[in-house]
């Protein structure tokens, strides 16, 4: 199924002082001929909205990370050995970023089935990541390391937990794109692209957090 190409976007004035050609309106009074459509939101607005959302999520994590870095710098820091399973979950997450791109490529080539297969794989890998993270938590519990055990355990659970919550949101987005048949405001390709941008962001964020937790101990 090829993406639908629709009419030209609502023009947004970017030129300086050149007056644009006259439209059919008569100053907004009465029912003008020509004039604009009812609420048309250009596609790029959805991408901008997504980027802004990612900025705010980034600020949230940077607040946690800065708290972590400052606390870590104090003398009584006891580094926490990172559960080995995290290397596996990281590999799963990175792989899922590759599979999501594969899915999008299939969609662009017109292969609906290919898209669904790879998109489904991505979603399952996302769930596997979450499962693996949960297992890491269980392993820590078994070793007697809980949220409140010491500052480094607190930050570990906090950072991995906050990230996990956002990944759950990402999995829901992936699932939504998977099951949805009808698209009104955006196309399926655009929705898939936006979900994948969010997914890559979560992947990169996790790699960053893991390196933070592992390095400089």
């Amino acid at each position, binding site marked *: 199924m090829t993406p*639908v190409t629709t009419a030209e976007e609502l023009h947004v004035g970017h030129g300086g002082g050149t007056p644009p050609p006259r439209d059919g309106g008569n100053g907004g009074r009465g029912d003008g001929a020509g004039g604009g459509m009812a609420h048309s939101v250009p596609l790029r*607005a959805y991408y901008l909205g997504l980027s802004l959302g990612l900025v705010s999520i980034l600020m949230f994590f940077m607040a946690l990370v800065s708290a972590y870095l400052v606390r870590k710098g104090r003398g009584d820091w006891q580094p926490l050995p990172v559960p080995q399973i995290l290397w596996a979950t990281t590999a799963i997450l990175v792989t899922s970023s590759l599979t999501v791109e594969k899915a999008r490529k299939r969609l662009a080539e017109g292969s609906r089935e290919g898209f669904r297969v790879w998109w489904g794989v991505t979603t399952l890998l996302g769930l596997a990541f979450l499962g693996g993270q949960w297992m890491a938590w269980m392993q820590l519990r078994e070793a007697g390391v809980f949220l409140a055990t010491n*500052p480094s355990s607190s930050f570990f659970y906090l950072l991995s937990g906050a990230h996990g919550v956002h990944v759950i949101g990402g999995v829901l987005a992936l699932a939504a794109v998977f099951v949805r048949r009808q698209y009104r405001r*955006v196309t399926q390709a655009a929705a898939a692209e936006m979900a994948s941008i969010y997914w890559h962001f979560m992947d990169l964020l996790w790699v960053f957090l893991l390196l933070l937790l592992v390095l400089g101990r």
Partner: protein
Amino acid sequence: MTTQAHEAHAHGHAHAAPTGFIRKWIFSLDHKVIGIQYYLLALVAVFVGMFLSLYMRINLVWPNMELPLVGTMTPEKYLALLTMHGTIMVFFVLTTAPQSGFGNYFLPIQIGAADMAFPVLNMLSFWFTFVSFAIMLAAFFVEGGAPISGWTGYAPLSAVGEIAGPGLGMGQTLWVVSIVFFCAASLMGALNFITTLIDLRVKGLTLMRMPLTCWAWFVTAVLGLLAFGVLAAAGILLLLDRHAGTSFFIPGGLVISDKLIPHSGGSPLLWQHLFWFFGHPEVYIAILPGMGVASHVLSTFARKPIFGYRAMVFAMCAIGIIGFGVWGHHMFQSGMNPYTAFAFSLLTMGIGVPSAIKTFNWLGTLWGGQIRFTTAMMFAIGFVSLFVSGGVDGLFLAQPSVDRGLHDTYWVVAHFHLIMGVAAIFGIFSATYFWFPKMFGRMLNETLGKIHFWITFIGVYCIFMPMHYSGMQGQMRRYPDSTGIGFLSELQPIQQFITYAAFVTLGAQLLFLLNFVWSLWRGERAPMNPWRATTLEWIIPSPPPHDNFAGNVPSVYRGPYEFSVPDQAEDFLPQHLTPAEVGAQNGKK
């Protein structure tokens, strides 16, 4: 990734007018309804906040009285009133009405759009705010009552729980949960505002032709997007300290009520840093929309273009950017490195520069203008006066050495009330008197409005100016009762004067409420453009139809403040008139 290469345009979805009471007035997607919902929420909140402050002022003069709804006043109850007063006013009034209220209503219209970019997200933001407010109010009714740790919620007091005082159990938890909801709501709103402004402007409306109200809402939204995530993080950490046994903020060795608190390793300073990193941009969020409204209203009623439009834009952006670098000035007395304090101090004073640019430009706008003293105009002029008063006394606090004596005194109380509790409120009042006709199709009564203005204007100066003196004399803030303190007893007459002034001023707000409610039903019918203003909201009916421009989207041909342009028939040129239409208008005269 080529995002714009393929289909560039989302299939335009017709935003059909909803039917049914619930879809129309409760779970509405219409930015105008949502804007009014926010405004009404803020209106309820401001009266709750004023009621709390009234009780505070009564206690300061007549301590430990028996009062309705509160019982016998105690110091702890005073602290609870103070905490909730600050929280409700800052979040549910000053962060809500100017941005989410007026911004939601007028940003889309002023840029020629039919609605916000994401109407469903908009509706969600309001209902998250509503839930946040409900949770906050619930804190009054749980066992132990409302928290006593101030709107700033400093740890460890806010983190250790009930043992440290009433309201610090369930009340404090509800406070934190409410704040986290509020953060989510604000982030969603900020995202919506920025996207709408960037992507939904009509043809001809370049960024530098936007009304200054839009610029203010834009900068405010950027600040909100960057700041509220940090507050959310702080809130999560606080909840974990309170309920999961962590010690992000709680140091070791605390003994409270003879009990050793089983936490250790945390830092109260961490809370302060996280809170104020949010908290300082927050106060610019509270004031910037008021600055936008002041510029807009002053220009309209002086019949003159705003003096220095570009400088005004630059100044708002500068205030926003520098505003992220000054949070340490709330922590001068925390034992910080004096060189760090020096840096924060320089930046804080530096913010005075763009603020002064704006002030001089407002004065320049008035200078030589044909001023029409409507109530909206008077509140805008009052805004400038109070912004100067509240801003200048901040410069004193910006010196760490001076702050040493003034920190936590009534000087600080005077400062933030003048700039937030008054100037920002005057911005809201100006916007109300200005835009009420458009929103509700009725005029507010100008006589009642002028009485409201004068009593309020004189009243707030009577309330807050004397606080500078009492602060300098050592009157501490957040103290419920200073009557027993020797060196402060001579200040009691001032406390009394302030309380009486507060009674009168608060009473005048009832006049406003009366005017508001009465005019909704009995006000004179408003024409389309009662103020002969230039921006796009004045070319649609009062009140506007569901999709604002009724399908007849205008284009913009000029800037927003073309007043008294030479050799024109009219003293204002609306943004949407084509050059040919202007020519025809001139030709007739």
